[in-house]
């Protein structure tokens, strides 16, 4: 594509693309193609001006970016395929235009419409607000709409139509922003749900094939196993599964689906195995459908009534009481009305959604994706943080260090066996075994029959008619009753201490112990110290690993508590107990065995390289390269709460001062209205600035 460079500075390029006009779709294609095709940190395409702003890190990237720009074509099928069904560009476009129309319309009316018509316009518009206030009174609730209506009504009664219309203008703008925030969070959530799955196992003629989701048609049979994300809507044909729908509904208790039951795309199989018949192929309005389901659920509901509105509601009776007392004392209706004229709710309505939106934006710049404002609140207020060990406090890539063979078997043979079993299991230890087999060039056929997962314990299956189990010591020896082959007891007793052990047995006899090392992350100790400094009073580690390994990890970190050899239910139960004791808990985890705990916690944080089920269920996802994001998350959320409370205090005191000055007769109503509106817009603008000082961003 032809382009010209409009501006260039270190690490940033602004180019004009060689198009006279750009549709929203085309802008998306360019944005996604550039993001995928060049080493840029961020790409932003402005569709109205046909400009693209590209920021990048290293200096040698520049040529590659320019090459990618030159190679770009908006008719390229590969580029088109990168763009998801719904990108959110249309939504921001819609609300930007709504806001612009509102502002331009108001300015034009102020400038050109004769006073009489303005008054008429104001009366017409006030009907909606007055009606809402009356409706609220009718339900016997003294809330913000009543105060809004009173402010507008009072202003109109005193003949001050310009104040009435500016109050209505600010309320309208606040409403548009609030709606925008809500739609955006729903949209982001739906997009993250509709994007997660790329392929699924389809059963055709008794054989299973891995098929990309876009290639699955209506009526196909899809096999689902424990921890799979359901790729498409469908009905269960065979088997029984418990489905965790918390990503969609916020409800952490899984629902059981048997033959004939309907399962939704984007939800997760927590346990069991089943065959579903696809009811709806991908692309056929799936995004809209997910949006509808999220809106119908409780997941984001509490957010629309943000805490600020609760605070505002509490003040309403005081405003009215003030007006009544003033009237009784002075017998002057004008003065009493001046109490109602200063309407603080529009300031709150404006600044709160802006604060939350900009906090979520700031967070994403640090590689943290937050699924809603209320989770930031939870992250700010939490005093307890629970870490999973594997993949969270340790590197997410454990390695197979040693294979100790029993019963006269060979290393390669054992590893091939283990990889064959572990292949389907989304856990970091399982991945280590599979990649170790790949490194040694060990290929395997699907030799086993149906695979059974026992969460946090292991896997059992049948190979050549023999029962094969792999998993923890407890699972293999106590649950499955396997034995150490006679003569090998000495070797068994001398297993190296410093590794985690994975036991594999075939036909009731121990075949191999796979030694896995999983070093603690370099930054873990520092991050935990920093978290202590950020007012976390209890930092725990929970792991399914043995006491021995847990103790050696805990000795390197300044933890308050650690619990070893716990089951997933125990993790969730621990969190429930803590919450019942009045603590607010953050859970950090990455695996399928953390999911009950993640949905139980006030805020569940998943590591982005972890199992997709964990990411699906969590409320916050952090980038995998460093735990530092947790510190950042805490700082950001505390700063957000500080800003919200600061805004609240500022708005209340400033407007209270205006009321007082108005009552004393020092400030004429016109300047009080000007100051009120000015402060409202100021607090709105201030809410959009970055939360943390710039030097911390580096």
């Amino acid at each position: 594509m032809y382009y010209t460079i409009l501006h260039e500075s270190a690490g940033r390029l602004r180019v004009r693309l060689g198009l006279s006009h750009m549709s929203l779709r085309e802008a998306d294609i360019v944005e996604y193609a550039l993001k995928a095709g060049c080493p840029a940190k961020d790409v932003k395409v402005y569709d109205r001006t046909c400009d693209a702003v590209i920021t990048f890190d290293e200096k040698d990237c520049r040529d590659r970016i320019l090459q990618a720009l030159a190679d770009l074509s908006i008719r390229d099928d590969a580029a088109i395929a990168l763009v998801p069904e719904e990108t959110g560009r249309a939504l921001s476009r819609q609300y930007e235009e709504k806001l612009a129309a509102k502002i331009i319309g108001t300015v034009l009316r102020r400038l050109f419409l004769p006073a009489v018509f303005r008054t008429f316009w104001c009366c017409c518009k006030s009907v909606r607000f007055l009606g809402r206030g009356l409706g609220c009174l009718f339900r016997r609730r003294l809330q913000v709409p009543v105060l809004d209506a009173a402010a507008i009504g009072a202003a109109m009664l005193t003949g001050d139509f310009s104040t009435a219309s500016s109050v209505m203008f600010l309320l309208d703008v606040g409403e548009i922003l609030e709606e925008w925030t809500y739609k955006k969070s729903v949209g982001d959530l739906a997009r993250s749900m509709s994007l997660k799955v790329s392929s699924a196992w389809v059963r055709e003629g008794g054989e299973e094939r891995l098929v990309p989701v876009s290639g699955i048609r209506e009526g196909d049979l899809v096999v689902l196993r424990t921890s799979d994300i359901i790729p498409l809507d469908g009905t269960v044909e065979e088997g029984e599964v418990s489905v965790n729908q918390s990503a969609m509904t916020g409800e952490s208790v899984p629902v059981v689906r048997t033959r004939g039951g309907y399962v939704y795309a984007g939800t997760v199989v927590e346990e069991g195995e089943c065959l579903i018949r696809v009811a709806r192929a991908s692309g056929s309005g799936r995004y809209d459908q997910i949006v509808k389901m999220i809106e119908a659920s409780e997941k984001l509901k509490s957010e629309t009534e943000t805490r600020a509105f609760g605070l505002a509601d509490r003040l309403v009776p005081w405003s009215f009481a003030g007006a009544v007392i003033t009237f009784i004392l002075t017998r002057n209706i004008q003065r009493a009305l001046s109490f109602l004229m200063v309407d603080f709710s529009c300031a709150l309505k404006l600044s709160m959604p802006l604060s939350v939106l900009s906090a979520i934006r700031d967070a994403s710049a640090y590689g943290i994706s937050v699924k809603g404002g209320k989770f930031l609140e939870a992250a700010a207020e939490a005093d307890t943080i629970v870490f999973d060990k594997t993949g969270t406090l340790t590197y997410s890539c454990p390695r197979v260090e040693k294979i100790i063979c029993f019963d006269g078997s060979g290393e390669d043979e054992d590893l091939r066996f283990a990889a064959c079993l572990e292949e389907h299991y989304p856990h970091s230890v399982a991945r280590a075994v599979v990649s170790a087999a790949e490194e040694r060039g060990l290929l395997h056929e699907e030799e086993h029959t149906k695979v059974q997962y026992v969460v946090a314990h292991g896997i059992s299956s049948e190979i050549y008619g023999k029962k094969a189990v792999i998993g923890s010591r407890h699972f293999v020896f106590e649950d499955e009753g396997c034995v150490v082959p006679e003569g090998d007891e000495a070797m068994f007793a001398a297993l190296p201490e410093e590794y985690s052990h994975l036991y594999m047995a075939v036909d009731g006899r121990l075949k191999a112990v796979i030694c896995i090392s999983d070093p603690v992350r370099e930054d873990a100790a520092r991050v935990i110290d920093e978290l202590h400094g950020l007012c976390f009073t209890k930092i725990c580690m929970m792991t399914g690993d043995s006491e021995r390994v847990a103790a050696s990890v805990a000795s390197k970190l300044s933890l308050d508590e650690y619990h070893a050899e716990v089951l997933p239910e125990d993790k969730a139960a621990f969190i429930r107990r803590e919450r019942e004791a009045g603590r607010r808990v953050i859970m950090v985890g990455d695996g399928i065995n953390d999911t009950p705990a993640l949905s139980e916690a006030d805020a569940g944080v998943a590591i982005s390289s972890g199992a997709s089920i964990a990411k699906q269920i969590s409320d916050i996802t952090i980038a995998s390269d460093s735990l530092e994001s947790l510190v950042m998350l805490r700082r950001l959320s505390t700063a957000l709460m500080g800003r919200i409370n600061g805004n609240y205090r500022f708005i209340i005191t400033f407007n209270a001062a205006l009321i007082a000055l108005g009552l004393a007769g020092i400030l004429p109503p016109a300047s009080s209205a000007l100051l009120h509106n000015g402060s409202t817009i100021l607090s709105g603008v201030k809410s959009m600035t970055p939360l943390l000082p710039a030097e911390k961003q580096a």
Partner: protein
Amino acid sequence: MKNWGHLGLFAGGLLFGTAGISILTSEDAKKVYTHCTAAVLRCRDSVMKTVDCVRENCGDIKADADAINEVRTERAKAAELAKARALVAEAEAAEKA
């Protein structure tokens, strides 16, 4: 005189009630409305385009300003380092002497 005024109003009302309404609802008038609406929408688009343009230019200015400040801090750091080196060298010289 007063009667003439009334008569004028009456005539005006008559004219508006017959010809005026039909003109305001005519096809030609509708064309005018359509064009006016189109003009308003174009106006809005151009305003939004200007807003975007200003936003982009603000981004340019911010990027350049950041670059300037970075150079300044680098320079200040270098100066500090040179000063410290000089101090160390001085101290070493004093020690030798």
